[in-house]
């Protein structure tokens, strides 16, 4: 069993090597730290994301996952460390500029534009420079917005004001909004939060389809629930109290003693 896993991991490593180092690193995060007062929400975290990678980040409540996303999308600046997107330092950049560079995010707590119909919610993102540029030739903004909504399965609710739309649908609307700018890196903050198993299933499928349609796009998914991520990602990073405590394949993570301890709320030894 163990050998099998090791073997699987090795071939995966081999694959990226075989690509000849051309598997470009889109996101390089080095030693970033962010404190709120005395609390270190993100503590010296480093990782790299390759082009087209599908990565999960898990961790218990308050682990600093959302803070990490806020740092990556430049809604917050780290106290120290560097974040490079395609080799360019993005720290201190305005959030909308980062989106136009190609990093789009969703919010854990949905943030729809309540007064606007669902389709107009997506059109806001299409009105951004990057969104507008990415509209295919001879396609109207409305058409593109409708297509995006179809991808996430919201076609029927297109003209409904967002304030009348249920929570599960708003979660999907968040994703459609983020996809509208056709990001190179997509950050999904608990896309399954508050969804019923049926909706989780549907969303898992559409994320996988998205991944296949756009193999060069890297997707980072933050989740509480390991089970939902298991089917989706090949690589999981675990945050706990701001620190990255483990990374590896979902199977490895599930069998990792430290991670299990964290999730079971057991005693954890601190250095």
């Amino acid at each position, binding site marked *: 069993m163990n050998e099998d896993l090791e073997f699987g991991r090795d071939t995966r490593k081999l694959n990226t090597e075989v690509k000849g180092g051309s598997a470009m690193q889109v996101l390089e995060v080095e030693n970033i730290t962010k404190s709120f007062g005395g609390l270190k929400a993100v503590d010296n975290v480093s990782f790299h994301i390759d082009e087209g990678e599908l990565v999960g980040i898990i961790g218990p409540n308050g682990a600093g996952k959302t803070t990490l996303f806020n740092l990556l*999308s430049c*809604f917050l600046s780290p106290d120290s460390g560097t974040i490079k997107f395609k080799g360019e330092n993005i720290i201190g950049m*305005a*959030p*909308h500029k980062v*989106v*136009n560079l190609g990093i*789009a*995010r969703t*919010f854990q707590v949905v*943030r*729809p*534009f*309540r*007064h*606007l119909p669902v389709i*107009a*919610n997506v*059109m*806001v*993102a299409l*009105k*951004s*420079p*990057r*969104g507008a540029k990415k509209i295919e030739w001879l396609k109207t*903004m409305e058409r593109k917005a409708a297509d995006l909504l179809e991808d996430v399965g919201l076609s029927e609710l297109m003209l409904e004001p967002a304030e009348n739309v249920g929570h599960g649908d708003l979660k999907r609307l968040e994703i459609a*909004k*983020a996809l*509208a*700018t056709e990001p190179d890196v997509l950050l999904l903050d608990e896309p399954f939060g508050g969804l019923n198993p049926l909706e989780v299933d549907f969303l898992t499928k559409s994320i996988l389809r998205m991944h296949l349609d756009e193999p060069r796009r890297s997707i980072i998914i933050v989740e509480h629930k390991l089970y939902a991520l298991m089917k989706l990602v090949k690589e999981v990073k675990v945050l706990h109290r701001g620190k990255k405590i483990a990374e590896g394949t979902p199977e490895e993570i599930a069998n990792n003693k430290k991670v299990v301890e964290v999730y079971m709320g057991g005693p954890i030894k601190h250095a």
Partner: protein
Amino acid sequence: MVRSYFRRAYSSFTAHVFDIPPRFMAFLFFLLLLTVPAMQLGSYVLRLLIMANIFAIFAVSWDLLVGRTGQISLGHALFFGIGGYTSGLLFQFFALPIWVTIPAAVAIGALAGFLIGFPCLRVKGPYLALITMAFPLILSNLVKWSPLEPIFGGELGFRSLPPFFPFLPFTQAIMAEYYLILLLLFVSSIVIYKIANSKTGIVFVSILDDEVASKACGINVTRYKIFAFTISSFFASLAGCLQAHILKLANPPMFSLDISFLPVILTFLGGIGTIYGPIVGSYIYVILDRYIMSILLPKAFESVGWTLPREFDFAKLLIFTLIVLVLIIKWPRGLARFATDELQNLEEARDLDERGPRIWKRYKKTKH
């Protein structure tokens, strides 16, 4: 039994009568306004309606900024005053004709809005409201300041600004002015309505709803806010310089708090965020405050043989405020919006014909 039958018949009747698209309603409204001068209501009433139209332009510009973009401005008098004073200055010192002063005033007003946009962007919500409120007060004191009297004319401001139609006799001039202002209201409100319902307008509403989320959509929120400020101040200063030329006067009260609050009241009366609501609100205001309270009421008192005490002027404000309060409490989303909602309900009611109009169902529900 009989009563409910009548009620039902009535509701389906109204449902059919009101089966008119809003655009057509607006068209009818303007058509009605076009025929007003033919009704021989006298030059005073025409004057009032001219003012109503100017206030409407002013309030519609405010609604775009506040109702659609969510940038609360309690200092729109700034642009109103700048419009009037620019016109006044250009006439006084360069004797420029009206066809030059108005575009210049509007341009300067828009520039002011553009510049005001920058400091105002650093603050939000109530703080923004307070800061915007301060600007017109500063300018008001500046133009009143005695060392600057040779330029701004002190407390008196500019008098004897050129009228629009100096070559026409009095009654015809008023009529011509009426049509000119009506045309300008028509054009400005359509332009603002078009902007508000364009894709840019969608972005405006996204900023009103959730600024952080629109940033996350890649929207340069700053740029859109400044754009909203600029358009809004463009039309607000248009209203200001129109009033200056109609009253032939540009004076410090143009920068007063009263003027700053005027678009707020008008917009809330009509329905914030509707764009057409402020026009309705403006007519309600002018009819209620300037016509019923100032003309009809004293006349009515006179006919009974009473005379109104001088203190009535103060009581008038109180009464007007109370009426506005009641209206806003009764229809918090505005009278115009209430009307359109009701129309929509009726339309839906008609669609549900066989099962009985929805309005009828609602009556039944309330009865239980």
